[in-house]
């Protein structure tokens, strides 16, 4: 069994483009759920309107790439207002219900056959990412060797002996932009949550009536948190769409939202670095289970009579679910969370 391959694959993925999408989505969710206590079960919809805003602008309307980004962000703001205005004055559960329904409506709209000549229906769209990759500064056919870092016709290999990390030139460009965005959002969020503005958000999470009685316009703060978290969700959608160079409506199902929640809870909600650590760990575990099992079957370590290749996928999710349950039992605050905080009676 090729352990080198398994570890290399898993670790390559652990900081790769897909992990960045999860990290960004969970960063937005962290502001909404972790700090403000808003149960947004529609983060996938924010990613979807971001991704489709970009794709439709560029492909269907022939607008420049940057207009696509602006339109995607505006769509996320509109979505946040649509979901927030009717529900944020009500109890917390109403937002949860509306967001989960709205996310499904958004996905169905993009999937609808009525507009399929523009949106591609369930097949989705492609052909919007060229302007992005045209900006790629990494040489397409670069070849160099520098210590343990080498590039072989545009493919970067970082060799650590026990494992290596391998990225294509396109991945590298997505990762450069993606990690840059993560860094920017973490700095912004770090400043915000340590400001009096962030203190009001945490107060709302604890007891919004109390905060209201202290003269704060709770509705406005909740709306701000929903919009900002949604914008970051839309950015996750951009990175998702660009890294795959296509958008597909069914990628933005409710599962997507719940992966963001898993990432957030795993890393630790209401912790600045929680989403990033959670995303890396989640995606590492997913890949090491998937690759490990697959390798074990191929090399005969696990007999194909016990489990075959097609069963690996569901089993991995079973194992991740089990891991999540164990985490909630033994470390409910997540990796970075504060147990003392969690043990307080929250009524």
């Amino acid at each position, binding site marked *: 069994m090729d352990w080198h391959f398994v570890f290399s694959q898993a670790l390559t993925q652990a900081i790769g483009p897909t992990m960045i999408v999860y990290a960004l989505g969970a960063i937005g969710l962290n502001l909404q759920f972790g700090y403000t206590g808003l149960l947004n079960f529609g983060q996938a919809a924010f990613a979807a309107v971001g991704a489709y805003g970009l794709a439709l602008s560029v492909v269907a309307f022939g607008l420049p790439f940057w207009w696509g980004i602006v339109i995607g962000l505006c769509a996320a703001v509109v979505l946040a207002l649509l979901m927030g205005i009717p529900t944020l004055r009500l109890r917390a559960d109403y937002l949860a219900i509306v967001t989960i329904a709205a996310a499904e409506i958004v996905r169905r709209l993009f999937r609808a056959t009525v507009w399929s000549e523009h949106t591609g229906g369930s097949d989705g769209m492609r052909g919007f990412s060229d302007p992005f990759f045209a900006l790629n500064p990494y040489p397409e056919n670069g070849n160099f060797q520098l210590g343990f870092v080498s590039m072989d016709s545009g493919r970067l290999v970082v060799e650590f002996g026990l494992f290596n990390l391998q990225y294509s030139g396109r991945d590298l460009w997505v990762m450069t932009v993606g990690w840059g965005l993560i860094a920017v959002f973490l700095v*912004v969020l770090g*400043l*915000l949550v340590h*400001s*009096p*503005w*962030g*203190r*009001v958000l*945490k*107060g709302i*999470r*604890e*007891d919004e*009536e*109390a*905060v*209201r*009685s*202290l*003269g*704060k*316009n*709770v509705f406005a703060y909740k709306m*701000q948190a929903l919009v*900002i978290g949604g914008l970051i969700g839309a950015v996750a959608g951009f990175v998702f769409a660009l890294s795959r160079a296509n958008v597909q409506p069914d990628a933005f199902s409710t599962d997507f939202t719940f992966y963001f929640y898993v990432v957030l809870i795993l890393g630790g909600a209401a912790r600045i670095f929680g989403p990033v650590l959670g995303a890396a760990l989640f995606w590492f575990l997913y890949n090491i289970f998937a690759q490990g099992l697959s390798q074990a079957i191929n090399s005969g370590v696990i007999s194909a009579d016990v489990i075959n290749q097609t069963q690996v996928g569901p089993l991995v999710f079973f194992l991740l679910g089990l891991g999540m349950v164990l985490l909630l039992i033994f470390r409910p605050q997540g990796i970075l969370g504060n147990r*003392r*905080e969690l043990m*307080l*009676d*929250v*009524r």
Partner: protein
Amino acid sequence: MSDEASTPEAAQPEPESEQPVAPADRAGITAARASLADVSPEPGAPKQDPILKAEGVRRAFGGLVAVDVAHLEVQRGTITALIGPNGAGKTTFFNLLTGFDRPSRGEWVFDGRRADRMRSYQVARAGMVRTFQLTKALTRMTVMDNMLIGAADQLGERFWAGLIPPLWKAQEAANRQKAMELLERFKLVDKREDYAGELSGGQRKLLEMARALMLNPKMVMLDEPMAGVNPALKQSLLEHIKDLREDGMTVLFVEHDMDMVHEIADWVAVMAAGQLITEGTPDQISADRRVIDAYLGAHHDAAQR
């Protein structure tokens, strides 16, 4: 008070004699009692200088009329108690006045401004700050953060300003200073880095009151401040409420405990079945037949609480 020879004055020797401090340090109580001396003990009695003036406040839940107060004035600088049997509509009335509920009809003026259309946070900003019957400490925040969130007009609470700490650091330091003074006064200063959820029930009551003071309120609305507080802490809580009056604030509180009402209230308003049935000094109220009927009539059990 010597220049006032009316009945209410003569009927109030007890609270005065219980004051541990010399009357000279208690200018607030003297002024409060004097301002109410000539007020007749009738529901809706007009006051010299009302900070709150309510007219025809009604709140119906379907067919049930929870509150129907024809007229109420609260004298500035006094401690006014709002009493009444369970289900009398005291807390509903409280919620209406503080913007936490909307009246079916009625209007009121707080400190010269129409307040019946204000939202709860606007009421608080106007200077009327409330506490809750079930204490609302922000449990997973430190005691200090609980205090700081109370401060009014913080620039750093705007989203864009939150990103630029130099803009609000000075204001934050001033608020912290003020919070320290209040925590000192409420004997919570050693707990300032603890989570509010780690405080005892009584300490949370103190914290809630101290936090309300961060807003520099003109009027403090206390919803059952003594509920669930042990006797030792009760006394110190009473002193803190008296201090509010000395600091020039007006206090309106809902309470069941008549002993406490006797000890600190300058004026008592009695509600029953949603209506204001009478007003008066604590002694006048104790002697009032209507009050005894309200408590002992259909709601005998309520009076035992």
